[in-house]
């Protein structure tokens, strides 16, 4: 096992720059998730680590060794593709043993690791099948089996779950987490799904438009998003953002309510779960009208409209006794307000 270091990595296709200034160190045994909207360059970055895409600028090191010019087969990494990329003319067993077959390991030596991986992944009965006779989830497992049989320096995953249905995706997500716990291998995992990122990662790398926005643990990103993009991307449902005009003790919203904010703040973010809802009374606070109610059982989402301020989503525990169109007062959990400046960067709160 080995760490992966990226320093000053950039990538251009012709004159078009798709990645720049990527600096990242993945520690030994660490599970790092690259997350970002479609087209932001996640796959490109992963493919550069794998050696499938030339690196335009910067340096890539795996286990301390410079890898820029090393072909994929020399990097000792395994990759699970979004499409699974199983060899259709080989059985499950041969698919999983293929890396060893190429390395000229004798057949007898190959059977053991393949059987063990099959056992771990519950593929024992399928070893003689061809990929076309497998379900999506089983193919996914075979692809992972092929990766773990090799015991590589690092694992790379490119949106491995995005072709599965919702239930299977949750199941495989747990499986991957369990597998990582068991093997503890260095892993770089690409996804556009922030739930996958939050649940799997030791550290998350949020990317947008070819640049890293923030690197941190899931709770770091949830509690201290570095900018409005990260704030909007991490957490579900999405964080509310309200704009306001600076006044001495904070930010005045369009309806006159003042929320506390540090100097320099132009907008405030508040997560739906940190917005308290009270029936309209005489007290001060942000007044809003309930426009839509989503009852999820454990929680209830209230889509509200505050005149002049804009739409706000509040999430409350359990059920609420409110009717559509009723008026409510919204109060933020003051310690959970996220102040952002005019450029969308987080403003440090002096505490």
């Amino acid at each position, binding site marked *: 096992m080995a760490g992966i270091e990226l320093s000053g990595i950039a990538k251009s296709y012709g004159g078009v720059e798709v990645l720049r200034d990527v600096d990242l160190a993945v520690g030994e045994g660490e599970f790092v998730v690259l997350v970002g909207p479609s087209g932001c360059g996640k796959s490109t970055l992963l493919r550069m680590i794998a050696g499938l895409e030339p690196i335009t600028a910067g340096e890539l090191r795996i286990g301390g060794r410079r890898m820029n010019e090393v072909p994929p087969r020399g990097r000792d990494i395994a990759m699970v593709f979004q499409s699974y990329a199983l060899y*259709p003319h080989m059985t499950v067993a041969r698919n999983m043993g293929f890396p060893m077959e190429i390395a000229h390991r004798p057949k007898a030596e190959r059977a053991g690791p393949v059987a063990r991986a099959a056992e771990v992944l519950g593929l024992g009965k399928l070893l003689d099948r061809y990929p076309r006779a497998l379900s*999506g989830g089983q193919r996914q497992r075979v692809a992972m089996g092929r990766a773990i049989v090799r015991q590589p320096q690092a694992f790379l995953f490119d949106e491995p779950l995005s072709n599965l249905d919702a239930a299977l995706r949750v199941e495989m997500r747990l499986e991957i987490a369990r597998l990582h716990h068991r093997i503890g291998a260095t892993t770089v995992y690409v996804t556009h799904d922030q739930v996958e990122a939050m649940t799997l990662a030791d550290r998350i790398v949020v990317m947008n438009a070819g640049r890293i926005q923030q690197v941190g643990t899931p709770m770091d990103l949830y509690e201290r998003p570095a900018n409005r993009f990260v704030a909007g991307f991490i957490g579900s449902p999405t964080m509310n953002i309200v704009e306001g005009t600076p006044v001495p003790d904070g930010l005045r919203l369009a309806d006159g309510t003042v929320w506390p904010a540090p100097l320099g703040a132009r907008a405030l973010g508040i997560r739906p779960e940190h917005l308290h809802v009270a029936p309209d009374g005489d007290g001060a606070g942000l007044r809003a009208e309930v426009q839509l109610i989503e009852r999820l059982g454990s929680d209830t989402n209230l889509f509200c409209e505050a005149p002049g301020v804009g739409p706000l989503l509040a999430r409350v525990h359990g059920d609420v006794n409110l009717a559509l169109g009723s008026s409510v007062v919204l109060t933020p959990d003051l310690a959970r307000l996220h102040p952002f400046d005019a450029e969308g960067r987080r403003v440090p709160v002096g505490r």
Partner: protein
Amino acid sequence: MAALGRPHPALVAGKYLALAAYVAFALFPLYWLVKIAVTPDRLIYSEGTRYWPSAATWDNFREVLGSDFLRFFGNSVIVSLSTAAITAVIAAGGGYAFSRFDFRGKRLVSALLLLTQMFPLLIIIAPIYRIVASLGLLNTLPSLIVTYTAFNIPFALFLMQSFFDGIPKDLEEAAMIDGCTRMQALRKVILPLTLPGLGATLGFVFTAAWSEILFALMLIRKEESMTFPVGLLNFVSKFSVDWGQMMAAGVLALVPSCLFFAFIQRYLVQGLTSGAVKG
């Protein structure tokens, strides 16, 4: 739910009837070929329109096999097999490059290949004759192999390219990550999956070369290097038309094609790539 069950028996019967009618229509000329081939000479005109002659004979086949035909036959086999093999190798290489790599001049080469397919053959027969003559290849089998190969490459190459395009790039990349060089990935992963395409290409080129007559007529004048279609033509011109022998020769001419397709048909089976990616 009845709609989801078996289709109505009348529909099934109708479908098979239509299929049978089509097959009968398509195979009738072949049947007629065989029928005349086994009709004795003396009955050819008197029983011309009967579905089966009152007496059948192998005489026509015996005569044909005893004549120069065997040599024409051999020549045709050599020319067609060589053409098919050389074309397939070049088309596979070119098709792979066209499918996987971006290189300077790709569009130009592609356009030129297409252009060669747009000329009527008649226009280029004279120049080809001159070229072959100045190479000193007139009356040799290589002259035909080279010309056929040249004329078949564009189509075969595009055919192979479309087969390679159908094989996901992920497979090679996975193989290269799994430890293969590009050549190993080609041999162990891509080639086995391309066999149907290769089979189709071989079959197409083989039949084209087997039945070609224009160039064979122009470039070959000596009996010993004539190919089969030219030899068949001789039946018409040399003596009076010997229908029985001509048809017997025709039946024999079908044999290699049938054998060839029987050999490659298992590679033509579709669906070999299913299961490679997604579901």
